């Protein structure tokens, strides 16, 4: 239901509800904390941009329980995530992996920063006074400057 209301606004509003329920939580606090960490990285596939940790959808609950079952069975965090990806595809990851189809996604922010910095560097160098663009005046300009200086001193003495 959540995405329905999205159209009404330029801002996110989710169907209010409970996410993790007390009966889902593991007794072992370390495992539970790991389960929460993993849940924040996984997308609830029937929601709009919600992690399974936040979502109230039944599917999210199933996934949360699944994550906890795998953890209890002794999987590492990575194994749990790999398992979910093998089952549901890349779509389940809120942080896409670095692979050919996401090279651009991960590459563009640093490329923009570095490219921008290089651009600024060359632009500054081209415009720096050292290369003489603005440092010297042509003869005509010198003459005009002299005339202006003279006129202003004239005015000042009057």
């Amino acid at each position: 239901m959540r995405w329905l209301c999205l159209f009404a606004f330029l801002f996110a509003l989710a169907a209010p509800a409970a996410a993790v329920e007390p009966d889902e939580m593991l007794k072992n606090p370390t495992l539970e904390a790991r389960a929460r960490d993993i849940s924040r990285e996984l997308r609830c596939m029937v929601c709009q941009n919600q992690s399974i940790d936040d979502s109230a959808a039944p599917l999210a609950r199933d996934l949360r329980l699944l994550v906890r079952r795998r953890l209890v069975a002794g999987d590492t965090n990575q194994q749990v995530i790999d398992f979910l990806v093998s089952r549901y595809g890349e779509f389940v990851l809120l942080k896409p992996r670095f692979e050919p189809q996401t090279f651009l996604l991960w590459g563009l922010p640093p490329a923009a920063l570095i490219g921008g910095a290089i651009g600024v560097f060359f632009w500054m160098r081209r415009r720096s006074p050292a290369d003489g663009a603005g440092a010297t005046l042509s003869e005509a300009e010198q003459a005009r400057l002299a005339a202006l200086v003279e006129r202003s001193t004239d005015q000042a003495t009057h």
Partner: protein
Amino acid sequence: MIPELGHYALVLALGLALIQGIAPVVGFRRNDASLMQLANSTAFVQFIFVAISFAALTACYVSSDFSVATVYENSHSMMPLIYKFTSVWGNHEGSMLLWVLILALFGAAVAVFGVNLPTSLKALVLAVQSWIAAAFYLFILFTSNPFLRLANPPFEGRDLNPILQDPGLAIHPPLLYLGYVGFSIAFSFAVAALIEGRIDAAWARWVRPWTLAAWMFLTAGIAMGSYWAYYTLGWGGFWFWDPVENASLMPWLAGTALLHSAVVMEKRNALKIWTILLAILAFSLSLIGTFLVRSGVLTSVHAFATDPTRGIFILVILVLFIGGALTLFAWRAPVLKQGGLFAPISREGALVLNNLFLTTACATVFVGTLYPLALEALTGAKISVGAPFFNLTFVPLFVPLMLAMPFGPLLAWKRGDLLGVAQRLTAAFAATVVAICVTFAAMGVKSALAPLGVGLAFFVMAGAAVDLCERSGLFRVSLKIALRRGLGLPRSAFGTAVAHFGLGVTLLGIVCATTWGSERIVSINPGQTVSISGYDLTFDGLVPRAGPNFRELAAKFTVREGGVPIGVMQPSKRSFSARGMTTTEAALMTRGASQLYLSLGDTETDGSIAIRLYYKPLVMLTWLGAVIMALGGALSLSDRRLRVGAPKPAARPAMQPAE
């Protein structure tokens, strides 16, 4: 009758917009002042007609006229009056009408307040503004007419989406739209300047108040939306990197960059081409945001394909305006002359750095938001880009930006002295070190990065304070002189310091609330007590209540601190019969800048209830900081040199005294 009146007024506004889009341009070509000045009256009357149209729709909602389709779909006769008002824009059609109302308002404001603008520039600005308005009037009239009637009017409406029945709806969208749409003025100024082929420091001075006003509203609007989401969602998050949020963040980032580059242009006549480009980009991103949210493309590319009329219409508007403006830019920008020179270490240099990071951050959000859509459209592969991606890419861009922030305002124009500035920032460095040490001592080393974040927040805040001290000479000259100098400082200097300080406050709130918050998710029976961060909450029982158009089940909790009762929290669950939907209303208790947050989960048959209880230390600072930022904008705006429109030349003696 009333809806037809509103419909007709909108058609008239479209007619006026077409006249205003053509006549001043013709006047500009023929150098005919009377044709150019026509835009002043049309802009004003256009606003009146859109206002009539909006008032007509509001009247339909308030009188619960269910013969109007949108009223039937989004209102209910039992709703409290305030929600009858707000439901006007709580749906697609009405919110687009609000959009054009604000667009027309800004157009009229330029006509009224821009008395000192050169006739030709003003005429062109109003013409461009009218092109945008005409496009959106057409969009509303052809694809999203809010005044359509139903053949067989039902007796009762289908109610407003219960999630939107909240005071937040009264404030958030109008503020956000004032920001979004406000950037249209900067856009129109940029396009007008490109058409005229003339641009100078005065242009920047004319544009800056409008940009500042839009930025202020957008800042407040985003913060308001964030707070609304925080208390509505029921789990205490306040920023989700949702595409809809990103749609508002992108114009904010571009607008912030624009504000800063316009300073360079105004003071030093440099960065002209870049400033023009940013002015175009800021509004383009607003348009893209509108497209993303309105077209349904976010749900999936396929949802867009099933009902593409609205999406394609906006896409055409998007291509026409963004494409047109960028083409004009590519064609005319080389004509513009570059201005003042500056060394890399200088106020200008710092502002260029600011722009580099802000635009990169904006590009990052842009790529992250649109990449999944583009990938799915091109290859069919479905990926998700969510909060973990943005946290990983956005945060590293904002850290250096904020590190550099205290330096910028202290550097001199043209050529600055970095070492000297660093020396003057000694007090800020000291505050940072103390903040980091105290945080480590109090909170331990469990999360090593968070105390550094706190340090950064204090560095930014202290840096802003140092900036004001330096300008007024506090601690260097006598208090009296410093006070007099401080009062004599231009308001924009205060604005800068206050806004920068606000960003530090926001950072502090975000770091503290996300790092040291605690959470309890438990099942609880009446009479039992749950504790969190020194507070004990006793569940007293469930109380059924009836609201105007809903029934609710409230859970009463008595809150004690050290055994002393300090208040009652009553989170509830509401069921709205008209739509058969339930909502959970979280209960908040503010303690200083921190909050206790309590929301309900499922009720069990044995009378126990699942609750989620959060303690959010200093979370209020997140939004307070944004309010301070907006206040900084308002201070700057009140600077008489920047007064909206053009500054009147101060009364000066006709002849400068001889030196």
